[in-house]
């Protein structure tokens, strides 16, 4: 892993590619070069990282729900460059209901990643051709990974568990051996 600070080229290269765009360098615990950008420049930042800094592959896109902080969601893109063998992570903060620019045009592999973010958090992506749910059924009404969504689910899951508990309470052990 490239350690931010031991510049084997990642930090200067990214800095040069993002010239003119506001970005703040972070110091995460894994030492990976990570920047924090505003949502307004996110699309340009990602495009420049691909075209000028040579990050040909997207490793993952995910969200973090930092309720009760405002803005609520943190969107994380992690990129990987084969040619330079390094990684960079881009963090953005989004408010509830705010959409993010889609990067499917740059990396087609990001399609499922963005759909999963939408499914789990409700973060929409502008420019994604087919933004529908990935993991939950299409007609599911909630976004499960939000912090205010309980682990066991909301209606109709609660009804189901009540039914299940009542059903099991009537079972008795057999009187005689089979």
């Amino acid at each position, binding site marked *: *892993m490239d350690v931010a600070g031991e510049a084997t080229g990642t930090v200067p290269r990214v800095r040069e590619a993002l010239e003119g765009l506001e970005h703040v360098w972070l110091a*995460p*615990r*894994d030492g*990976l070069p*990570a920047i924090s950008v505003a949502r307004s420049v996110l699309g340009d930042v990602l495009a420049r990282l691909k075209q000028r800094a040579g990050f*040909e*592959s*997207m*490793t*993952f896109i*995910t969200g*973090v*729900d*930092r309720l009760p902080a405002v803005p609520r969601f943190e969107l*994380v893109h*992690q990129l990987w460059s*084969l040619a330079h*063998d390094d990684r960079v*992570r881009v963090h953005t903060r989004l408010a509830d209901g705010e959409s993010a620019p889609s990067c499917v045009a740059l*990396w*087609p*592999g*990001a*399609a*499922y*990643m963005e759909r*999963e973010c939408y499914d*789990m958090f409700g973060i929409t992506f502008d420019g994604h051709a087919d933004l529908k*749910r*990935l*993991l*939950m*059924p*299409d007609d599911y009404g909630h976004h*499960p*990974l939000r*912090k205010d*969504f309980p*682990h066991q689910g909301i209606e109709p899951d609660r009804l189901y568990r009540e039914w299940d508990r009542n059903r099991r309470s009537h079972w008795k052990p057999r009187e005689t051996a089979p």
Partner: protein
Amino acid sequence: MTLETFEFVRETPPLGEGDDPLHGETMELNMGPQHPATHGVLRVKIELDGETMRKIEPVVGYLHRGKEKSCESLGWAKFFPHTDRLDYVQPLMNNVAYALALERLAGLVVPERGQVIRVLLMELSRIAAHLIYLGTTAIDLGAVTMFFNTFKERENIYTILDAYTGHRMNNTYVRIGGVFADVDETVEGLVREFLERLPAEIDDWEKLLTGNRIWYDRNRDVGVLTKEQALAWALTGPNLRGSGVEHDLRKTQPYSGYERYEFEVPVGTVGDCYDRYLVRVEEMRQSVRIAHQTLGHLQSTRGGEFLAEDRRYVLPPKDRVHTSMEELIFQFKIVTDLRLPSGEAYHAVESSKGELGFYVASNGTSQPLRCHIRAPGLMNVQAIPLLAEGRLLSDMVAIIGSLDFVMGEVDR
């Protein structure tokens, strides 16, 4: 709840005068979610024009169990069994990946013997996963014998793991800071015996498949993936290596002591299903080579520590937990209330499917903030339309097999 109904979308215009009567309409075929050849509960909606697949749409989520949410509810220490069930054909590999991410967040270093044992477990898991790939892909394409051959060898791996961990699969034998217990001479003997026999078996299987006209015709030039496509579509692992990219996380970003082992990284040329098959078979041989080296390291580190010493994060050995009050309290505290330092960390391992990574974020409390599982299988599923569109329906089975994904990690 009902299965979603299909809307018949007419891609081609209706038959007119003078039109070729054989290309009038397309048919929508649903493959899965219950299907012998989709390697789990994957559903693929295929629009067929005769035997040619015009439009393909994979539908995933039939095994979504809410693992990332479970991590937030359960806590870091109790999530280990869930990681086994991600890519369930190589449970220990996922365990190690998760433990490495947590250790990176905590700043913990695993002692050498612990690292050696982890490498041995990971390589055995890699062999097991590739055996599943070989067995199921071969049986899907008609070579039924391979299923029985590979499962026979998998039973031998199960015997080793049963002797060592007590369970055949879903072992959960890795802890933060090392492994649960030490490897003893019996297990080493079983491993040695297995590794001595496996290369000859692989040679045998290659005689069945590699030069086989049918296997060659069904896999050569099927599902060709170029290097640029592989990178743009976020593919890693044997899928990327089959397309000619020599990239292996064990070489470029070594973890768990991999820099101490000698092995080669097989690379394909064309990027078709046949190349990916050759890459995986060769990876099995290289895994055998690495595992032999771990046996040597195990002998040289005999008596060493296999678990780090850090009261805040590392579970004490079980025999001391049962006899000493202090260790019992630490065990209780770590299992119920493990706190990792605030911050984020990402660590990836080279799993049999590609780059398996865990992005963990903590806010310093005992409830995890986020645990995102970067599953290589999801990217492999995403590439199905890329490789299969325009091909015949029977190529779909070859492509699904050669992309090699496991729905446990795709859906999490």
